[in-house]
């Protein structure tokens, strides 16, 4: 161990330390940005260390340098443009694409080592085990994340896509992948078999993600994030690098936690999400017009934008409950504008359910972009403490997460964590129709006598209410 090797290893340790402290600083919006910059600094230190080590060893060829710099800089440029241009509503797709390339890179690193040593029988069993794991997990993450991104973007049908024999195909790909992997593990360093395993894993990623519906995407994106982390950590085992192992493990843990949290918030098990096949989340059967689906003889009270405006103008405490419908209609700016308007005479806050939006915490980003201060963004538990003292709760495009039936056993939302909107003194719901949410049952909140239903698109409805409130305030 010479001085350079020691310095390089210490630099990796420093980088890992930076990542951990950075994640720690994310426990508050006030320090999060500092954390992100610290993490970036750690990354620069790690890359500088890796380059120093390569220069010191002097084993890299000129072609190697060209390949590395052109590839790295080209990729960096694409990443930079994507991160600058993406609209905040499209963040889930881009995160998915970054997951894909991260997993893909991990698989390529493992494959690179394999291809170099193949045929000579010089691959130790520990490297072989890590390599086989990586050429399976990496490609699954790659193709799975791309399909997820396509579904989020609308390029791939966001409904669960099931074709005859899908399960059989998935089973076949699993068999080929595992069989090929075992063949390699038995000490046969055959490149054709490696390619076969990679192809089977890629196909598996596709058949795994296709049957999963759009509403389950928060879970899927989090899960694939976790997979990528694990793939990177395993690549660290292949090249014996602590930086990759620690960085990958941190991401694996983060993605794993978010996966479980999201699944709990949707009242599903991770397994049932992955088995897929039902639910699209884009709200019940098509063609259910206003009032048409007010089931079981329960009556609803319809109100107009003016009625809603009067209630809001005279309230002293207002909670706005944004849901998927608000994100879909891109109405976050209207919601923020209304909050500011009412904020002149009342206390306003946003009550945000963990699965509002299309990835964990997505709604908060949309509202922050629309200039809502983070002090007004309340998590579910904090919001639920406030609802009993709220004068008006304005529900915009949220359905199942407000259904009080969840507190009772015996129905499809039982046990699901919800926002206790029904405890507010009065409730206004902006919704396009009486169509069911993802759970497929009536929302008892809508038939509550204190609830007024305002049938409208989220964006147009909020704009009408804003106009009416302005008229009231002006007169």
């Amino acid at each position, binding site marked *: 161990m010479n001085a350079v090797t020691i310095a390089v290893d210490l630099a990796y340790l420093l980088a890992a330390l930076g990542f951990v402290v950075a994640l720690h600083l994310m426990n508050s*919006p006030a320090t999060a940005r500092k954390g992100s910059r610290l993490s970036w600094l750690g990354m620069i230190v790690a890359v500088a260390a890796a380059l120093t080590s390569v220069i010191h060893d002097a084993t890299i060829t000129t072609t190697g340098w060209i390949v590395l710099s052109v590839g790295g800089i080209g990729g960096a440029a694409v*990443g930079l443009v994507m991160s600058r241009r993406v609209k905040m509503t499209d963040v889930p797709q881009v995160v998915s694409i970054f997951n894909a390339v991260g997993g893909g890179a991990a698989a390529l690193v493992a494959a690179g080592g394999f291809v170099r040593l193949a045929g000579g029988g010089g691959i130790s069993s520990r490297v072989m085990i890590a390599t086989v794991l990586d050429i399976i997990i990496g490609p699954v993450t790659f193709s799975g994340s791309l399909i997820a991104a396509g579904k989020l973007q609308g390029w791939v049908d966001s409904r669960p896509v099931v074709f005859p024999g899908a399960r059989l195909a998935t089973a076949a790909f699993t068999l080929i992948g595992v069989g090929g992997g075992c063949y390699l593990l038995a000490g046969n360093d055959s490149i054709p078999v490696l390619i076969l395993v990679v192809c089977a894993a890629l196909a598996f990623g596709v058949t795994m993600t296709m049957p999963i519906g759009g509403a389950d995407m928060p879970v899927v994106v989090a899960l694939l994030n976790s997979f990528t982390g694990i793939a990177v950590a395993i690549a660290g085992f292949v090249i014996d690098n602590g930086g990759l192992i620690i960085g990958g493990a941190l991401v694996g843990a983060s993605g794993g936690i978010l996966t479980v949290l999201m699944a709990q918030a949707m009242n599903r098990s991770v397994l049932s999400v992955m088995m897929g096949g039902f639910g699209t989340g884009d709200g019940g059967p098509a063609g259910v017009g206003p009032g048409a689906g007010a089931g079981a003889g329960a009556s609803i009270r319809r109100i107009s934008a003016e009625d809603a405006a009067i209630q809001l103008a005279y309230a002293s405490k207002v909670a706005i409950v944004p849901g998927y419908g608000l994100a879909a209609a891109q109405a976050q700016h209207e919601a923020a504008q209304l909050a500011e308007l009412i904020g002149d005479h009342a206390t306003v806050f946003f009550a945000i359910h963990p699965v509002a939006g299309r990835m964990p915490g997505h709604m908060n980003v949309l509202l922050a972009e629309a200039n809502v201060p983070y002090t007004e963004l309340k998590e579910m538990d904090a919001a639920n403490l406030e609802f009993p003292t709220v004068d008006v709760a304005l529900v915009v495009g949220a359905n199942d997460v407000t259904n009080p039936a969840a507190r009772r056993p015996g129905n499809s939302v039982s046990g699901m964590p919800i926002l206790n909107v029904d405890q507010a003194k009065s409730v206004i719901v902006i919704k396009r129709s009486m169509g069911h949410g993802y759970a497929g049952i009536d929302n008892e909140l809508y038939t509550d006598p204190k609830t007024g239903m305002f049938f409208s698109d989220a964006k147009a409805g909020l704009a009408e209410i804003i106009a009416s409130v302005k008229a009231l305030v002006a007169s």
Partner: protein
Amino acid sequence: MTAGLMSDIYMFVLAILVGYEVITKVPSTLHTPLMSASNAIHGIVIIGAVVTASQARTDAGYVLAFVAAFFAGMNVVGGYGLTDRMLQMFRKRPGPAAHDGTKELS
């Protein structure tokens, strides 16, 4: 070799535990930036791309190194860029643009 493998496994397991401890304290308000930040962290795979490029001697090796470097570069820079862009929007008070809106009404 076995000692190296054991310390790698120690590192892996302990890092998962540390990650678990740190990440459970992140509020759900920041879950999207958290995911993007962790996304950026797995861009550390770029070190793997550097190592792969340094060992490549064949055409196949160079192609693999090139694609790995491209993917990893995209992952790192895109991940941090996006995270920072999102986090700078989380402000304690509304920005100047929002204040103009209020004045217009009063």
